[in-house]
């Protein structure tokens, strides 16, 4: 991985996209265990139906973790200063998520040169699931 440099990055640059396989129940079971989020609404269809949902659905934090991968694929995590996400829609089984990011601003923050990146995750039907922002320090 070549770390991007502040001088060579321009507003409007796109980060390499991260495409994920369609979400299945195994993925949600693994994420429940690994993340510590054992809410049965994500892993137990009986519970989900009683809660009025058609089926289990993905943890919001799984989608945010994927956006984290988008960012750390682009620049080392040690340069990540801020990472914010807004969850905009439920991510259902079978959704294939694409994570993308775009350099929105070049700025100085706490005496470091940084870029502000607008990030989002969208499923294969074009429905936005998460929007957010990250601040990454670049030398």
């Amino acid at each position, binding site marked *: 991985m070549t770390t991007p440099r502040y001088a060579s990055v321009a507003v409007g640059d796109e980060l390499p996209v991260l495409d*994920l*396989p369609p979400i299945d129940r195994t*993925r949600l079971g*693994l*994420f429940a*265990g*690994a*993340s*510590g*989020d*054992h*809410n*049965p*609404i994500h892993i137990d269809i009986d*519970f989900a139906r*009683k*809660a*009025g949902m058609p089926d289990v659905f993905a*943890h*919001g*934090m*799984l989608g*945010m*973790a*994927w956006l*984290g*991968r988008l*960012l*750390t*694929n682009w620049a*080392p*995590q*040690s340069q*990540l*200063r*801020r*990472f*914010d*996400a*807004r*969850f905009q829609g439920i991510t259902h089984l079978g959704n294939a998520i694409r994570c993308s990011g775009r350099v929105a601003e070049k700025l100085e923050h706490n005496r470091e040169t940084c870029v502000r990146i607008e990030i989002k995750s969208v499923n294969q039907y074009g429905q936005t699931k998460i929007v957010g922002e990250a601040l990454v320090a670049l030398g």
Partner: protein
Amino acid sequence: MIDTKWIGHELPASVLPIERSRLQFFAKAIGETDPVYTDADAARRAGYRDIPAPPTFLFAAELDSGVLDRLLADLGIPLAKLLHGEQGFTYHRPACVGDTITVRSKITDIYAKKNGALEFVIKTSRATNQDDELVAEIRSVIVCRNG
């Protein structure tokens, strides 16, 4: 309605030891293939003391400790009505295998929208390491959907 008396409430501290096998499990669960997140030598070559906790991992602290479950019970939010509205992290230094992270949170706001159909709880946290250094500041928006 969620009682606004909880604004200002401080949650018990949650202590999360950063463990190698847990980070490897987390990497598998999110499909992470960068060896920095599974292999200590790769992490050291990248300048970390050991495998770093990925950007969102510290969210586990209050799940593992049961502090979040207790909070939801106190606020009267059933799991079936719980949604995650927003999540934010501001990072100050890495948390790596061998570190012990303590997360201390406070409820900073509670409000309703759409005539109470949605209620919002804002929780802000500080994550510190075993040397009492600030690792991250964390902000969570918890949503309860009514009806």
